[in-house]
């Protein structure tokens, strides 16, 4: 406990020192440390033209570049760089002495931006949320770029670290699915909110400096090929008329009656009117030789579907075995998948033993007297 307090106090001090040492205002969350060409910060609907000046950035600032570039360094040393004609909204950044309570959220809305997470560890990576118009990016200690076009289509590339190894992992997801980038220069393209990101491809022969808005005009060949491949697969899956191979048509060869397996029997097939209240016990044949395999159950004394003798309906439900009987009272027993049981039933119309996997691990006696 004491150690925890000490660490927490130290963290508080670090944050305080950072704030004071950098000389920023209380509501500053970082600084523009480089600015070339045309760039501006939109703050409270006011456009602040940079013209090469370096100013602090604040929450809800929107960083924009024209024919210029910008580098922002946040309090935790995370870096955001914008190339030409790019826009990023700094949506939410909150530093708490406890990194698990800190949070960073940004929206990359246009152009090419690079984000490298902070070295100070003031924010748990799980609390860093980067969004593009079509994707959400979860960060695990990472350096990556996004290139977003006017339609919101997003190309996301994981960058290497100083040693050329992957700088971590990023998880790209949207309503269509999720893709994880793990390799250096692994990339995915997201074209719409409800369409899954493309499968990961690795782009060869590039460096971070080469990643810019040219990828909007001409995406890397590896990415283009992947998009084409997935589009072709999608078209094949649409089942259009041109996809039908009439030579393979063999529906007329099927005997629907023959293929109507009792295994299709389910709760909806129970016919409450099919029960027989007048079964002659003397006519009951010895059913102990019956054997049926249903799911994880080797059944004896009963078979799947409706059993005329015992009046049990037997079927699988989510892998579990259901035995249902409705004569002078309903008994419905569900045995979990793979359960070993013996069901000993005495009723006025039927007496018998039903087993599952020939075991008495679960022993059930039913005594129904009218």
């Amino acid at each position, binding site marked *: 406990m004491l150690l925890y307090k000490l660490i927490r106090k130290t963290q508080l001090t670090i944050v305080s020192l950072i704030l004071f040492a950098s000389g920023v205002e209380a509501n500053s969350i970082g600084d523009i440390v480089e600015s070339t060409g045309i760039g501006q910060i939109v703050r409270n609907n006011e456009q602040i033209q940079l013209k090469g000046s370096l100013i602090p950035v604040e929450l809800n600032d929107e960083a924009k570049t024209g024919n210029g570039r910008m580098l922002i360094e946040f309090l935790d040393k995370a870096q955001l760089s914008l190339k030409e004609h790019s826009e990023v909204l700094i949506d939410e950044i909150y530093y708490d002495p406890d990194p698990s309570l800190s949070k960073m959220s940004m929206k990359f809305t246009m152009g090419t931006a690079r984000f490298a997470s902070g070295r100070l560890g003031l924010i748990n990576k799980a609390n860093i949320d980067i969004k593009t118009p079509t994707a959400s990016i979860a960060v695990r200690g990472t350096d990556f770029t996004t290139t977003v076009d006017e339609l919101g289509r997003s190309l996301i590339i994981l960058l290497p670290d100083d040693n050329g190894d992957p700088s971590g992992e990023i998880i790209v997801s949207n309503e269509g699915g999720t893709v994880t980038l793990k390799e250096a220069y692994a990339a995915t393209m997201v074209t719409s909110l409800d369409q899954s990101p493309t499968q990961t491809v690795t782009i060869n022969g590039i460096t971070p400096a080469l990643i810019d808005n040219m990828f909007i005009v001409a995406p890397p060949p590896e990415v283009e090929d992947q998009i084409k491949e997935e589009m072709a697969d999608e078209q094949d899956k649409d089942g259009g008329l041109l996809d039908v191979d009439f030579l393979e048509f063999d529906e007329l060869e099927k005997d629907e009656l023959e293929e109507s397996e009792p295994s299709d029997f389910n709760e909806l097939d129970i016919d409450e009117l099919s029960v027989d209240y007048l079964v002659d016990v003397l006519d009951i044949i010895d059913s102990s030789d019956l054997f049926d395999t249903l799911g994880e159950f080797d059944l004896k004394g009963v078979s799947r579907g409706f059993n005329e003798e015992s009046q049990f309906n037997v079927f699988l439900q989510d892998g*579990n075995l259901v035995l249902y009987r*409705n004569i*002078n*009272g*309903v*008994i*419905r*027993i*569900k*045995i*979990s998948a793979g*359960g*070993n*049981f013996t069901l000993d039933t005495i009723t006025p119309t039927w007496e018998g033993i039903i087993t599952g996997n020939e075991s008495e*691990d*679960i*022993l*059930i*006696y*039913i*005594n*129904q*007297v*009218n």
Partner: protein
Amino acid sequence: MNKLLSITIVGLLSSFVFAQATDDNEIRIDQTGDTLTLYIDQVGYGNKIGLDDFSSSGSDMTVVGSSLTFDIDMIGNQNLIFGPLILDSSSLTFSTTGDSNEVDWNIGDTGSSDSSNYAFAITGDSNTFDIDQGKVGASAERLDADLILLGGSNVFDLDFESDDITWNFDITGDSNNFNTLQNDGSQSLTVEWNGDSGDVDINQISGTCVGGAPCATPNAVINLDITSDNATIQINQKDAANDS
């Protein structure tokens, strides 16, 4: 050991007696009248709810009335609670967290106990519950009871001489012993059983339905889901008046 006892009593008509003994936390209840709302939170060891000082064995507390609301929470071990309760149109919520607790409740022992709604939540081991509802000659209709049990080696003996009963029991734990009787018309019992080495006895004995009217079909329903490596389950559905 620190003991905490807090009671909130609202809307009491007629008489109600409460006292606390010096050695254990003891709540003595002798109550007659309608629309009682009683909340009891007991935290600690060896708490008791009943009528007398429990110096030898506990005597039943007396609760008589209709439209009663009981909400009793007991946290701790070796707690005791005794009946009987005679209550119509009442809601009873009872939860215990602890081991070796004993509940001996006789609901509607000498009077009617219609339209009751019970919710039991038990977390712990080696608890003993003996709960009876209804008695021949006393009306006990339209009961809705729910039980959630999480723990092992508990013993439940639930005998309900009542018609139009709906029970939903969710039992998780090993070596639990469960004995139930639903005796009268229109019974429904749903049990979800997860645990090994269980011993379950389920008895349904038919009878008349509400107001003596013919019972709808089916008159008795048992719905049992079992996940267990070993369990012994005995189900009796009878028109006769003898259970297992």
